[in-house]
């Protein structure tokens, strides 16, 4: 069974949208309550490597993209999660599962204001101590 079918089968109806935009780029959307389970399936069960995550402020909400790389064939599976409450965007942290996610979640917290529930060390990573609280550089203008 190839990896694409494997992802579809294991994630089942957690996938709310599936887009193959090119030969090696697959974007799948899941609900924010399923993020930890989806990450667990991709990282532990299917053996993918967590490459990075990126957040972006959109009119619909704060969107997080978790990029997982399947190195055996060079495909990247990107989990898209939309946090529609822009005043208090919250998501489950995947750091307890994947240690390599610790820093990127801290960065997304300070750049976009996303609260990661369960993160062991959610404090500033890049910004100075005298950077004003509550101001997030990558948020769009109101």
């Amino acid at each position, binding site marked *: 069974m190839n990896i694409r079918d494997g992802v579809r089968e294991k994630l089942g109806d957690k996938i709310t949208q599936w887009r193959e*935009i*090119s*030969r*090696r*780029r697959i*974007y799948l959307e899941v609900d924010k309550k399923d993020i930890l389970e989806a990450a667990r399936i991709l990282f532990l069960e299917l053996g993918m*490597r*967590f*490459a*990075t995550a*990126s957040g*972006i402020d959109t009119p619909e909400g704060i969107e997080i*993209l978790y*990029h997982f*790389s399947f*190195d*055996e*064939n*060079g495909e*990247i599976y*990107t989990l898209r999660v939309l946090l529609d409450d822009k005043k208090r965007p919250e998501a489950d942290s995947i750091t307890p599962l*994947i*240690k*390599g*996610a*610790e*820093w*990127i979640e801290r960065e997304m917290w300070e750049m976009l204001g996303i609260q990661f529930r369960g993160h062991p060390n959610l404090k*500033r*990573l*890049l*910004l*100075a101590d005298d950077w004003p609280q509550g101001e997030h*550089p*990558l948020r769009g203008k109101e």
Partner: protein
Amino acid sequence: MSHKVIVPIGPYHPLQDEPEFFQLYVEGEKVVDIDIIIGYNHRGIEKLSEDKHFDQVAFLVERICGICSSSHPYAYVLAVEDILGGEDKVVPLRARYIRTIIDELQRIHSHLLWLGLAGHFIGYNTVWMWAWKYREPVLDCFELVTGNRNNYAMFKVGGVRRDLKDEDIPFVKKALDELFPAVDMFRGAIMDDPVIRSRLKGIGILTREEARNWCVVGPTARASGINIDVRRDEPYGVFERLSWNVILENDGDIFAKTVARIMELYESISIIRQCLDEMPEGEIDADIKDVPAGEGIGRVEAPRGECFHYIKSDGTNRPVRHKIRAPSFMNVASNKVGAVGGTISDAAITLAAVDPCYCCTERLAVIQRPGNKKIMNGWDLIRLSQEKTSRMKEGSRHND
């Protein structure tokens, strides 16, 4: 009650070109914890990208890091070309050969740079001087081909900016021919020296399991037995057309990381030679005018590992979002397991072994604790590391 000593390394230290500040918690000789704080180099590049048009972004990202100066623009243009259909569809073949040559020359200069610094950290200053001396002809090649020793301004969406002239090829080939025996010399000096072996073997081990959990990349991962290399897993440039090997070691210690980098030098020399021989005539630029709306991901195997760029475009001439993830972002975080458990005298070389590029990562580490503390600075740490090597040399002399 143990006496905890805090050893700050940095932020301003003569041999650390980049301001980073590690705080090691030590008990006696052993490192029990490490805090890594970053941010001294953070220049807000992802935000700046949103105000520049696609052509300008290539110049901006080149200056994320001086050492991997071609990896970031390459990953960036690959991300944009991903939106356009992929490098192999958009970029002319000659341009892809030139890109590969620049990328591999950069790997050579970066590994030699690291070799020199590592040599200095363990007290072999001659290795430092010689590694950097042999780096100079590589920089001369860059200057000849691109016009600058660093910051090449070669990459643009759809191709490269300058051609590699036929009359320059003999110079590059000659530089590589002279480099080959030098790499042999380094390999002999480092791999056969019993003191270096005992100094580096078994130190700073990152197990396969830890390497996977911390999602490390590059030679740091390959030294721990994780078989990943973007050049083979998702080929770019012309790597698919050439014959080369991925270097894999299994011990995960600093010696393995050193060996991995030295062996990669041989592979890089071979790759460039093949490119120079096989490069066809043709265009070097596809002359792209517009970038349609979409999302693209580009990645290259920088000297330190996978360099990952994500671009979101809405059809205008500026990116909506540009996410940059440098390899050191993953690798330096893994120092939390690599350095802890070792001794202070090994700390300097362990932290350097992942080949950290702080400007890529924008990090700092500082921890201060009131009360019972003894402060040593980074200079002391390197001195401790060099003294350990001297003691080992003395020891081996007595054993003869």
